[in-house]
C-alpha cells in the first residue's frame, strides 16, 4: 500500500469476467484502495504470455472507475446497523471493497495481431510509456521532430509533456484546432495564447514560416499580447519542462478601425504607451464592394441586384465612366461619396427621360442597390471611409512568428462580418499565390457559434469558414476556433478540426449527442476541470488525453486594462495629434492647430489618413501639405449670422 508508487511499481491487475470481458479496445483492472489512479490516468499492462515471441504491452487511459463492496443489497447495511448511520460508522469491520477501473486502449505493442487485452500486471505510465502510448514516438524522433507541446499529462504523481504533431495541427496532413469551454475560466483565449507561444517556439524550420491573425471579438482579451504576465514558479517550471520561453510575443501588430467620429481608433488598446504597434484598419469602396455580399441581405438583394452590383464593380468603380444618358460628364468613382453622386445622376437622368430601365437595370433595382450600398458606409462607420482611402493588414509582407490582432470588439455585427470575410479572403488569396510573406497562418476566431452556426440560413462568413475548414490545410490557412457550445457550431467546421480541445464544459452541453462517446466519468471530469486543464483529441491519440498547460506569458485583458487604462474620448484636435505622434513623437499642437480653425473635420481626417498611409519622414509638412496653399492664404471665415427677425406689425407688445 504505497500512496506514491514509483513508475515501475505495480499498480493493479487486469481482470475480466464473462459479463465484463476485455476487448481489443477496452480492459478492466483493480487496484488497492489508496492507489493514485484516477480518470485520465495512463497505464501500461504487461501481458503474461508472449505473442510470437514478444510479451505484449498494452497502453490505456482510464475512462471509468467503480467502487463496490460485498454488500448485495443496501438494505442489508441498514438492517445490520439498525437503521442508525452512527452505528454503521462504529462497525468494527469495514466491508471488503474494490476499486475497479475501465481503461480504453491507446495502443498495443506489437500492433498485430490485434487481440483482446490479456490478463497482466498494470503499471503507471512513465515519460517513455506516454510517448509510446500516444504514438508520439512517430513524430518526436531526433531530426524529424514535429512536436508542438500542448501541455503536460499528470497522473499518479507522474508528469510527462504531451506533444501535438505540427503536420496534423498546421497541415498538410490535417489541420485546424477547435476549443470548447465555458466562459470565464481562462480556457479558450488562454489556451490559444499558450499554443501560439508553443507553435512559435517549436514549429520546425523545415516546415516553413508561420504567423497568426487573431480577431479580438470581445473586451480586451487579446489587447496585451506583447506585455508580460506575472507567472508563478510552477508556471515557469512548466514552460521550462516544455521548452517554451516564458515571455510575451515579440512581434505583435494591432489593427483597429476608427470610432464613428473617425478621430481615434476604436480599441481598448488606446493607452499612449502602447500606440507604437497600433494601426488603423480602414477600407474604401474598392475594398468593400467585392465583399458587399457579406453585408447585404439575401432576401433583399436578388439576382437583378447582384447583376447591377457586378456591373458597378467591373465597369464603374476605379475607372473612367461615361454614358450618353449622362451627357458629357466623366465619372471616376473611388469612394462611397463618388458612388452616391453617380447613382444620383443616373437615376435623375432616367427620371427626366421617363425611362424605367438603364442598360437593362430597372430603376427600382437602381434605387434599392443605391440605398443598400451607400448605407454600408453608415453601418460601418469608422471602418469604411467615404474618401476611398484604405489602411490594411500588411498582406504580402507578413513576418515569421508574428501576431496580427484585428480588434473588432467594438464594431457592429455586420462590420465584424465584413472584416472577418475580407481579411480571411485576402489571406487565402495570398497563400494561394504564395505571396503572403509566411507559409502558414493561424487564424483565431472566438465565438464560432456566431460565425458558423449549425442552424440558420447560409451566410457568406459560414461558407468561407467551411471552405477554410475543408481546404485550408493545403494552403497553410489554419483555423483555430473557439466557442462555448460546440453542439451549436456547424458540424463540418468542427468535424474538420483535426485537433479538438475541451476546457471545463457545461453540463447541458455534455448532454448533447456529440458527447455520447465519452464515458460518464469523463463527462464529470470535463464538467469540473480546473483552470489550465484541457482534454485534447488529436489524430495520433487513440483516446482523449487530459493535460495541464501553464498560464499564458502575456498580460490578461483585465490586468492590461488596469495597468494601461484606455484613454477616454478626447477632443478632436488632441485625437488627431495623437495619431500623428505615432509617426513623429515630437509633433506639437502648436504646429498643426491652425488647421482645426480653418477646415472642417472631414478635411482634417482626410489629411490625417493620407499622412498615416504615407508614413512620411516630414510628418508635419506632409500633413499640412494636404491642405494646399489654402492653409496660409485663407483667413478664418466667420460663420454667417442669420439676421434678427423683425417684429410683426400686429405684435401687441411691439414698439
Amino acid at each position, binding site marked *: 500500500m504505497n500512496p506514491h508508487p514509483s513508475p515501475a511499481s505495480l499498480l493493479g491487475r487486469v481482470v475480466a469476467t464473462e459479463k465484463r470481458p476485455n476487448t481489443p479496445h477496452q480492459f478492466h483492472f483493480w487496484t488497492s484502495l489508496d492507489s493514485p489512479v484516477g480518470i485520465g490516468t495512463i497505464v501500461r499492462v504487461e501481458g503474461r504470455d508472449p505473442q510470437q515471441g514478444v510479451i505484449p504491452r498494452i497502453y490505456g487511459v482510464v475512462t471509468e472507475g467503480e467502487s463496490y463492496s*460485498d454488500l448485495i443489497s443496501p438494505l442489508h447495511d441498514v438492517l445490520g446497523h439498525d437503521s442508525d448511520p452512527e452505528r454503521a460508522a462504529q462497525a*468494527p469491520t469495514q466491508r471488503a471493497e474494490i476499486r475497479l477501473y475501465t481503461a480504453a486502449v491507446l495502443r498495443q505493442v506489437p500492433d498485430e495481431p490485434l487481440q483482446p487485452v490479456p490478463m497482466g500486471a498494470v503499471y503507471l505510465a512513465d515519460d517513455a510509456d506516454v510517448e509510446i502510448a500516444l504514438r508520439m514516438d512517430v513524430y518526436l524522433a531526433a531530426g524529424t521532430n514535429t512536436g508542438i507541446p500542448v501541455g503536460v499529462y499528470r497522473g499518479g504523481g507522474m508528469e510527462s509533456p504531451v506533444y501535438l504533431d505540427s503536420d496534423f495541427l498546421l497541415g498538410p496532413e490535417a489541420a485546424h484546432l477547435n476549443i470548447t469551454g465555458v466562459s470565464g475560466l481562462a480556457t479558450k483565449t488562454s489556451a490559444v495564447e499558450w499554443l501560439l507561444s508553443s507553435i512559435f517556439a517549436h514549429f520546425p524550420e523545415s516546415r516553413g514560416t508561420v504567423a497568426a491573425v487573431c480577431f479580438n471579438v470581445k473586451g480586451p482579451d487579446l489587447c496585451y499580447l506583447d506585455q508580460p504576465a506575472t507567472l508563478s514558479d510552477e508556471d515557469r517550471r512548466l514552460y521550462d519542462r516544455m521548452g517554451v520561453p516564458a515571455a510575451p510575443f515579440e512581434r505583435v501588430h494591432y489593427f483597429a478601425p476608427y470610432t464613428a467620429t473617425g478621430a481615434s481608433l476604436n480599441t481598448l488598446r488606446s493607452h499612449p504607451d502602447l500606440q507604437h504597434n497600433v494601426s488603423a484598419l480602414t477600407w474604401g469602396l474598392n475594398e468593400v464592394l467585392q465583399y458587399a455580399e457579406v453585408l447585404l441581405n439575401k432576401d433583399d438583394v436578388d439576382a437583378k441586384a447582384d447583376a447591377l452590383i457586378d456591373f458597378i464593380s467591373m465597369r464603374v468603380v476605379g475607372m473612367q465612366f461615361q454614358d450618353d444618358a449622362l451627357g458629357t460628364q466623366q465619372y471616376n468613382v473611388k469612394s462611397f461619396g463618388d458612388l452616391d453622386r453617380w447613382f444620383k445622376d443616373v437615376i435623375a437622368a432616367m427620371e427626366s427621360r421617363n425611362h424605367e430601365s438603364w442598360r437593362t437595370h430597372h430603376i427600382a433595382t437602381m434605387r434599392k442597390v443605391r440605398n443598400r450600398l451607400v448605407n454600408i458606409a453608415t453601418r460601418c462607420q469608422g471602418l469604411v471611409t467615404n474618401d476611398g482611402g484604405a489602411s490594411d493588414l500588411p498582406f504580402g509582407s507578413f513576418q515569421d512568428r508574428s501576431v496580427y490582432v484585428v480588434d473588432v470588439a467594438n464594431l457592429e455585427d455586420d462590420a465584424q462580418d465584413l472584416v472577418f470575410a475580407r481579411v480571411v479572403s485576402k489571406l487565402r488569396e495570398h497563400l494561394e499565390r504564395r505571396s503572403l510573406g509566411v507559409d502558414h497562418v493561424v487564424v483565431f476566431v472566438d465565438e464560432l457559434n456566431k460565425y458558423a452556426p449549425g442552424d440558420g440560413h447560409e451566410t457568406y462568413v459560414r461558407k468561407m469558414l467551411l471552405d477554410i475548414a475543408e481546404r485550408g490545410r493545403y494552403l497553410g490557412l489554419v483555423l483555430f476556433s473557439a466557442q462555448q457550445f460546440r453542439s451549436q457550431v456547424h458540424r463540418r467546421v468542427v468535424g474538420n478540426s483535426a485537433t479538438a480541445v475541451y476546457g471545463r464544459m457545461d453540463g447541458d452541453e455534455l448532454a448533447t449527442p456529440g458527447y455520447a462517446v465519452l464515458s460518464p466519468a469523463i463527462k464529470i471530469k470535463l464538467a469540473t476541470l480546473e483552470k489550465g486543464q484541457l482534454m485534447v483529441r488529436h489524430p495520433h491519440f487513440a483516446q482523449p488525453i487530459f493535460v495541464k498547460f501553464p498560464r499564458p506569458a502575456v498580460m490578461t485583458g483585465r490586468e492590461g486594462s488596469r495597468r494601461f487604462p484606455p484613454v477616454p474620448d478626447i477632443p478632436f484636435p488632441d485625437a488627431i495629434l495623437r495619431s500623428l505622434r505615432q509617426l513623429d513623437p515630437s509633433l506639437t499642437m502648436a504646429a498643426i492647430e491652425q488647421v482645426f480653425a480653418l477646415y472642417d473635420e472631414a478635411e482634417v481626417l482626410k489629411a490625417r489618413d493620407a499622412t498615416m498611409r504615407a508614413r512620411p519622414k516630414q510628418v508635419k509638412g506632409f500633413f499640412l501639405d494636404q491642405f494646399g496653399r489654402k492653409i496660409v492664404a485663407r483667413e478664418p471665415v466667420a460663420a454667417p449670422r442669420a439676421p434678427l427677425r423683425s417684429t410683426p406689425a400686429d405684435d401687441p407688445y411691439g414698439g
Partner: protein
Amino acid sequence: MLTTAVLRALSELESRVAGLRRADPAGASLEVMLNRIERPESARARLLEGDAMRVWPVPADAPASVTAFLDGVQESREIAWMGVTPLVWGRVAAVIRERRERRLYTWGAAPLRREAVYAPWSRMTQRDQALFQEFGLSTREVMDEETADGTGEHPFRQLQAATNAVKQDRELLENSLAEQFCARQAGTLYLDGPLPRAKSVHESERVVGVIKSHQTVYATGAALTLVLDLKEGERSSMFAIESRHRDPVASWYLRLRDPRGHGPFWGLVRLELPLLIAQQGGGDLADTWSGWVMAERSPLALPDGRWDTMAYGIRNCEEVLRS
C-alpha cells in the same frame, strides 16, 4: 471447483491406469451429499457454573476486541473409480484475516492450501499411485478402520472415509495457523468451529471457537428448553465437553439475534474456550468473550445464508479462500 489441470490429468490417466473409470465431478460436493445423512444427537455435559443450567445476561455494547478471524474450507468430489474403490479429489484451505484499522488483511504470507486425490492407495499398485503423481496429482492415503478389516466395503463408507480424511487435513491447516498465531501474534483470535487440538491454543485465553451448527446439542430436558429460549444478548451457563477424541473445552450457548419470527436455533451459537483457561476465568471470561462475539454482529455476513450466526470476518475468510 476442480481445476482444468486436474481434469486433463484424469483424462490422460484413464488410458494408462487399468480399471480406472472417470466419474462426473459436477453437482454437489461430497460434504453436502453426506451431511444429508448425518444424524443429530443430544449429549449431556458437566456444568461449570452453578448446579443447574441458567440464563446469564451478556454485558451490552462491549467493544470490538477480536483482532483476527480464522476459517478453513474443504471440498471433496468423487472423480473416478478403481474397480469398487472411489477416488476422491479433496481441496482444503485455511486463512487468518487480521483486522487493522477496521479493514481485514491476510495474516502471514498467504492462505494455506492443499489438494490431493484421496484413496486407499496402499490397496493399489505402487505404479498406479506413481502415475497419478507423475501427472501432478498429489495422493493422500485414506485409512478407515472399518474398511481396513474388510467389513465395511460399502462404497459410501469409503466416500465418507475419504471425506473425513479431507476434513482432517483442513483441521490440520487450521490447527497449524492457530498455533502460529498464538505463538507469534498478540491479540485475540475468532475461530470458526470447534477449538483445534494445538497445545498452544489450549493454553491461550486469546482464542475462542464459535460453532454455528447444532448437529450435537449439549443440553437435554429443561436445560435444552432454557437454551432454545435464550433471548438476544443472553448466554447459558458454561459446561464442559470432554471426549476421547479431543482436548476438553468449556462451552456455552449465546443468542446473537432476536429469534422472534424464526426457529429456536436462529442466531444461536456455541462458544468454546480451553477448559483450564475457562475454569480460571470463570463466568467473567464467558461474559467478556460473549460481549466480544456479540460485537461482531455487524456488518452482516449477508448474502451468506448463515448470516444470523456468522461473523463478517468469517465470511471474509471464506471469500478469500473461495477466490
